[in-house]
């Protein structure tokens, strides 16, 4: 999997003050980033807007949300890699890119890093 949850508690935590669950996903190959934020609670009456206590967060499943996002991101990543391999253009990498897949090459152009994907034979 190229997409994963970033390591470290600072990338997958619940802010106890704001009741937001922050999850930072990243692409280890391209350096792409995607955030998931689950708002935990803050319900209010849909008629009058008056807030009421939240006693059950059982309807929220962070693992399911993360897995669904990873599945979509991974599929998109595979499509980009196939496109690149087919047409022979390099991929500009973000600073979080840490993995160079076997057979691929990274070159540096000024401040930019480029990933070169093996060209598919025609």
């Amino acid at each position: 999997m190229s997409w994963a949850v970033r390591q470290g508690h600072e990338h997958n935590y619940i802010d106890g003050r704001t009741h937001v669950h922050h999850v930072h996903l990243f692409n280890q190959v391209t350096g792409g980033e995607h955030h998931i934020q689950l708002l935990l609670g803050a319900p209010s009456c849909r008629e009058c807007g008056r807030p009421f206590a939240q006693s059950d967060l059982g309807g929220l499943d962070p693992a399911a949300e993360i897995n669904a996002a990873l599945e979509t991101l991974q599929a998109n990543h595979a499509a980009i890699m196939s496109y690149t391999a087919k047409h022979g253009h390099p991929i500009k990498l973000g600073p979080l890119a840490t993995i160079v897949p076997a057979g691929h090459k990274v070159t540096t152009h000024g401040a930019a890093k480029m990933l070169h994907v093996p060209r598919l034979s025609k």
Partner: protein
Amino acid sequence: MPKPISAGRQSSAASEAAIVLNQTNYASVDSVAVGSAAAIRIFGKAGPNTQYPAVKGEIETILPSATIINVPLSTTQVVGFDGTNYQARGTLPEQLMDGTTPTGTVSVVGGGSVTLPTITPYEVYGAILGYNVTDQGNGLTGDVTIAVVGSGTGATAGTQVISGGKLISVAPGNVGSGYGPGTTCDVSGGTFSGATGGGQNIGGNGGRFITNDGTTG
């Protein structure tokens, strides 16, 4: 040795319409209804889950895409990126502190409360041959769940037609057997779930803030 002079900070009062900000971004911000809540999506020109460039002065950075889940319906949210996370807040001035990049404004769908319709089953010789919508309800954004309650078993409702938030008709499904007088329908649900199309941007510009024009969202 000359010292730099602080130009001061822009105050929140400067966020009136048509103010020129020295920053912009190319994000789209929308919302999608999911069950009884909504998800706000922040993304680039290539669609959901793609990143976008944001410009401050002469510096351009690529900011993460994001999905904010379980947002209350029927609210307006102003989204900004604080350098680490996105923040959804109620007003633009709340996103104008130093270090935060205002991203966009979005109205979160919902359209108010849902009034469920009432449905009476049409029973003949123990089978449910049809459904009479006696009250169309209001505010529906998705199919309602219909349970046939009576002495019989196996009856299910078929395709529903919903228009303008009202239930127009219900086709019969399996007719079941063994039902008698007094059979009723329990109705629940009625909110849109999954799929795109439940949300909309407000303020133009695809929900994003933009400089040098009068359409700042």
